């Protein structure tokens, strides 16, 4: 076990003990679930578009190396400079090189999960570059000095009162008003000045079209447009799985992403960026860069079962419907991607020594699978990661790191008992007679009995009951 590994169990217990946090999440997730349900009231339409979107993502994965080459070719033809990064360090170095060349002092950023993965803000700040998150939720979280707790609604863990206090403390001349409209307008004033002055704008990518060299970006606030239009340089970051083959593949993804995420039929803005400012054009950045990041994705791609992880379109619906995420919130995971998708993606990127606890934080209820718009078999992958966590030699980094000698002995005893009819009869008879005498405070039992009644063993085994009915043992 990595000594610096996040302690998911401890963080979860702390979250469970915070009624304000639980209330904030409960209210938010209930709202998001019911809004999504309204959008997919027509089951036939849901199944049809979902199958289409899943096929689009699978087709992209089936041709991934060719599509990335094609994307590079079309982007380059359009005037976009394409960069490749095997690791987050390489991606950060690419960003810094561009920033140094253009002597950037101020960067405005749209929402980008990949840059969270890269810890880009910390790298830029260490280099003396001011970087400002411009999505309102991300801006709030940045002011608070914490990290996003949801990939779509980064500040969902805070209520209006908490945000009003934060703004009062951190923004000059802010009034103490617990009013979302006032707080939004205050952020508008601060950030508009930054958009105007920024040297570089940064963004993520929702889908990159190989056919046309187009970067698609969806958002509600207009900050994505500001970051990709107003500063003289735009740098976009994407995980290598974000490519799609054709322009026609964009509508199914756009149809499902906002409906799954927040229950909106579409986001306010769908941006399709196909190059820097052309001669004669009056606005738009003069340079556009695309950074394609691997960071373990090619390893995920190598395994035919784990590969499905890369279908994800980052809608966050799995989080909204997850009974574990809904109770503990996003910060307990201490990861760039929380919730069900985080539980399968992060351990594969960062390894099981550091993230081996994450796949265990699942009830296997399948809610995430039922609502996933691209049909990722999240629970199956979770099961596979649980096995990899305790079995060395698998495909995932640090396989076997969670192996426990006690657990191995228990399972080996269980296997031996079930392999021998005599041992099985002896053990089941013993449990019927003595099992109820075991105190609920026993190690391994007490975590269960803390919040549940201890199960009672029947006085007669199934075999006894069968024999009594005249059914012979085989």
């Amino acid at each position: 076990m990595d000594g610096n590994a996040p302690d998911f169990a401890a963080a979860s217990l702390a979250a469970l003990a915070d009624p304000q946090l639980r209330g904030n999440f409960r209210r938010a997730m209930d709202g998001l679930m019911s809004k999504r349900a309204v959008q997919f009231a027509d089951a036939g339409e849901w199944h049809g578009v979902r199958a289409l979107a899943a096929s689009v993502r699978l087709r992209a994965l089936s041709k991934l190396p060719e599509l990335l080459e094609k994307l590079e070719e079309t982007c380059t033809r359009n005037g976009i400079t394409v960069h490749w990064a095997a690791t987050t360090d390489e991606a950060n170095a690419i960003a810094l090189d561009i920033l140094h060349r253009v002597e950037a002092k101020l960067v405005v950023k749209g929402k980008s999960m990949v840059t969270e993965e890269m810890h880009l803000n910390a790298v830029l700040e260490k280099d003396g570059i001011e970087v400002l998150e411009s999505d309102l939720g991300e801006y709030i979280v940045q002011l608070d000095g914490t990290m996003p707790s949801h990939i779509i609604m980064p500040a969902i863990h805070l209520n209006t009162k908490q945000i009003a206090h934060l703004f009062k403390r951190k923004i000059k001349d802010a009034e103490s008003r617990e009013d979302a409209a006032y707080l939004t307008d205050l952020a508008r004033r601060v950030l508009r000045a930054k958009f105007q002055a920024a040297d570089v704008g940064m963004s993520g990518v929702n889908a990159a079209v190989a056919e046309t060299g187009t970067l698609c970006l969806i958002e509600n606030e207009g900050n994505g447009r500001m970051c990709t239009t107003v500063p003289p340089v735009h740098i976009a970051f994407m995980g290598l799985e974000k490519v799609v083959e054709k322009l026609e593949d964009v509508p199914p993804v756009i149809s499902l992403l906002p409906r799954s995420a927040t229950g909106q039929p579409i986001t306010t803005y769908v941006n399709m960026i196909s190059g820097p400012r052309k001669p004669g054009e009056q606005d738009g950045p003069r340079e556009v860069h695309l950074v394609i990041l691997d960071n373990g994705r090619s390893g995920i791609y190598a395994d035919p079962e784990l590969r499905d992880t890369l279908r994800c379109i980052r809608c966050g619906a799995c989080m909204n419907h997850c009974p574990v995420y809904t109770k503990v919130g996003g910060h307990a995971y201490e990861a760039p991607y929380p919730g069900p998708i985080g539980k399968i993606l992060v351990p594969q990127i960062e390894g099981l020594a550091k993230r081996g606890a994450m796949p265990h934080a699942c009830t296997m209820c399948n809610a995430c699978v039922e609502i996933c718009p691209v049909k990722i078999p999240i629970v199956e992958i979770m099961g596979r990661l649980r096995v990899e966590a305790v079995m060395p030699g698998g495909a995932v980094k640090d396989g076997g790191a969670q192996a426990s000698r006690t657990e191995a002995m228990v399972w080996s005893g269980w296997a031996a008992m079930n392999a021998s009819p005599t041992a099985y009869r002896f053990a089941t008879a013993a449990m019927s007679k003595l099992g109820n005498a075991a105190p609920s405070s026993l190690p391994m039992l007490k975590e269960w009995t803390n919040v549940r009644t201890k199960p009672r063993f029947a006085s007669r085994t199934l075999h006894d009951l069968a024999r009594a009915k005249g059914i012979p043992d085989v």
Partner: protein
Amino acid sequence: MSDARTSILSKLRTTRDAHPLTPPVSDYAPIEAKQWPNEERLPRIRRLMEAVHTEFLDATEADWPAVLRDFLAREGVGSLLYAPETDAGKRLVEGWNAGSTTLIPYDRPLESLKPQLFDSIDAGLTTTRGAIAETGSLILWPTAEEPRTLSLVPHIHIALLRADALYDTFLQVMREQEWAQAMPTNVLLVSGPSKTADIEQTLAYGVHGPKRLIVLVVQP
């Protein structure tokens, strides 16, 4: 050629070839099936866009500049940025009576217009390439003559929508207008004024982009 590029592509190709993936056929029928009769498209677009605070004005080819002028005067809009080289821009200035609203041409690069654009211009006028009934979205196709920031920075965005340019779906418009043949620098779907729900899921309008979106529907 970077080392990262070579190693990433090589790894992807090797592992994919070892475990090829056969995807199901992409059946676009569920999107193609979304169709509305002519007379239902505009009411649907209005309903969806009004639900997110978009405002509509009705006009004809003959009177839209006058309808717009009256609206701007009524709302006390002091300045309107427009694209002087477009047909719509030329129509706008024809016979414009210097009243309460000053027309400002977008006739220079963003860099020299930035302070004015951010600090003192109230509204921007753009054309559209039509609208989409499925989602209630305007299609904006910025050009050298009609810059992107016209619809982004001013507090009010006014969009001209011709009532005979309505489509059922995003997919349909993309196919009929053959977007894949020549994408411009930037294409946009706009479905309302800028909004956010990042503060306790309370909807608030005008967070970074325009606070108001006015669609001027022009009947042929």
